[in-house]
């Protein structure tokens, strides 16, 4: 009796732990501190960074699709800063048209799928695909991603190119100086799982 009781307790304990681990691994990833840096190569040579830390969102491991996440990450485009006021004005108002209405003031990344990484133990290097909604246009993006354990959460670093004409964004040009068609987006954030 004692033997069976001990065995039963061990099984219950094991199942409880297993369930707990699984629920922790599949819990939603909430974005904590984040930063998005967009490297903009200039037509005259050189480049500048447009940055913002206004990144929010939650990603939840998809029950039906391994390595896929439901939910989205959103970036407030009104906060993107290039370090030059005039350039900020042009970027936000003339090219991103953040005042145009819904879908224009945010960039939203959704339908994220990891490749080469395990959602349950995601530390490592791999790649991802996702859907980027920008300037009212939704397109698939893809790029490398690196995930590291950071305390009780994860530190995520991903990058992908964005071709501006694909999103119906006018070629940024002013007084003979402009930004080339393709910019490189670098997303870095810490995520905690609940």
């Amino acid at each position: 009796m004692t033997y069976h009781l001990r065995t039963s307790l061990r099984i219950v304990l094991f199942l409880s732990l297993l369930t707990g681990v699984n629920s922790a691994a599949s819990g939603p990833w909430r974005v904590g501190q984040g930063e998005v840096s967009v490297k903009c190569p200039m037509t005259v040579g050189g480049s500048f960074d447009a940055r913002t830390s206004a990144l929010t969102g939650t990603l939840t491991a998809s029950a039906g699709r391994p390595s896929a996440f439901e939910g989205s990450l959103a970036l407030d485009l009104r906060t993107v800063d290039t370090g030059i006021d005039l350039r900020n004005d042009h970027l936000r108002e003339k090219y991103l048209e953040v005042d145009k209405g819904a879908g224009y003031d945010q960039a939203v990344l959704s339908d994220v799928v990891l490749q080469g990484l395990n959602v349950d133990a995601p530390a490592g290097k791999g790649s991802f695909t996702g859907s980027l909604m920008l300037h009212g246009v939704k397109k698939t993006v893809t790029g490398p991603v690196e995930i590291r354990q950071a305390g009780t959460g994860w530190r995520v670093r991903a990058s992908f190119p964005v071709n501006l004409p694909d999103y119906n964004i006018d070629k940024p040009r002013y007084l003979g100086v402009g930004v080339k068609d393709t910019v490189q987006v670098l997303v870095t954030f810490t995520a905690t799982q609940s």
Partner: protein
Amino acid sequence: MTTTVRWKVFSLALVIVAAAASASAEPMFLAKQYTRCTACHYSPAGGGLLTPYGRLLSHRELSTTGGNAAAAPEPGNEDDPHGEQAFLYGALGNALGPVHLGLELRPSHLRVSFPGGHQDQNLLMNLDLIGAVQKNGWTAYATAGREPAAHGEDVRFISYEHWIGYQRDDGFGIRAGRLLPAYGVRFADHTAYTRGYEDFDHDDQVYGVEVSDTMGPSLVQVTLGAGKAEAILQDDGHQAFSMTARWQLDLTPRTALIGSAAYRHSTDLDPRSGLIGAAFGFAPTPRVTIWTQVDASLQTPARGGHSWIAVNETSFEAYRGLWLKFSPQLKTSGGVPGFSELRRLLFEADLLPRTHWNVGVSYYHDHNHTFEVSTSTLLAQLHLYL
């Protein structure tokens, strides 16, 4: 020669050295994420006439009292600058068409102090009219002005630069004419050791061809010259083939690495010589830029032997449009008798109230380590850019 006379001669030489400055390039703007000169200047080597974008940026973003009040040209109307972004404050209206002009004047006061005395001089460093036309990738550029009197000669006409260039969208560029060869960092101060002692001074342009190519974050520039322009024009025996190569890699928008090399063939009067060096610039914050350039000067003993030349320039924007600079500089003697080891400390304050006028105050402490002699120079400049 008495000591007093010797030092008067020395101070006069220094006055002459400092007596002409070309329009400034400002590597300190790396802190504002500008790694390339061509964003604001017509010349790929930096300095000289500002483009409409450069004038606008100067007014709106870099000047102390500039701001949003600037009436900027509309996109597509680059040839219609007005107000502060135009020649003579737009007094000529549209009369110039696609021609962009700038008038540069630099009234200055110079005081050179040396053991036993000092010498003061008021002078007009620059008086140059600069013009450029840019269409469909082509640029025609020229300066016309006067060179301050030197060596007892009269003030004379000089065109420091005149060239025609073509720049393709894919990054390939070519230009030909009188131009300063691409090498290292073009510090605004033409007396910086890496300029003054390496023949990249205010009048060291060559007649030649420069080919450049931008490949991603890299810029490669190669300049082939038939000789220094002044040597060719004056037929003074110093004319010789020269070649420079410069490679710049923008590691980030605020970090750049530069490698350079130069070769100058022998002349009737000079042995052949060469330079090889590296420069690194980074801006840890949007208000601080640190550039360091180190060159090995590969000279024959007749020109000072193999020596090292190093310049650091640290710039700090204390307030919008007020830049403070500190620049230690070194030139070793090469171990050749008759050539000295030189050290310099430069402190500078540049106030940029508006696009059309800047004020600069520089204090140089120069020390000849070989002869243990020090001099100091105070230079105050009003830079009018009309």
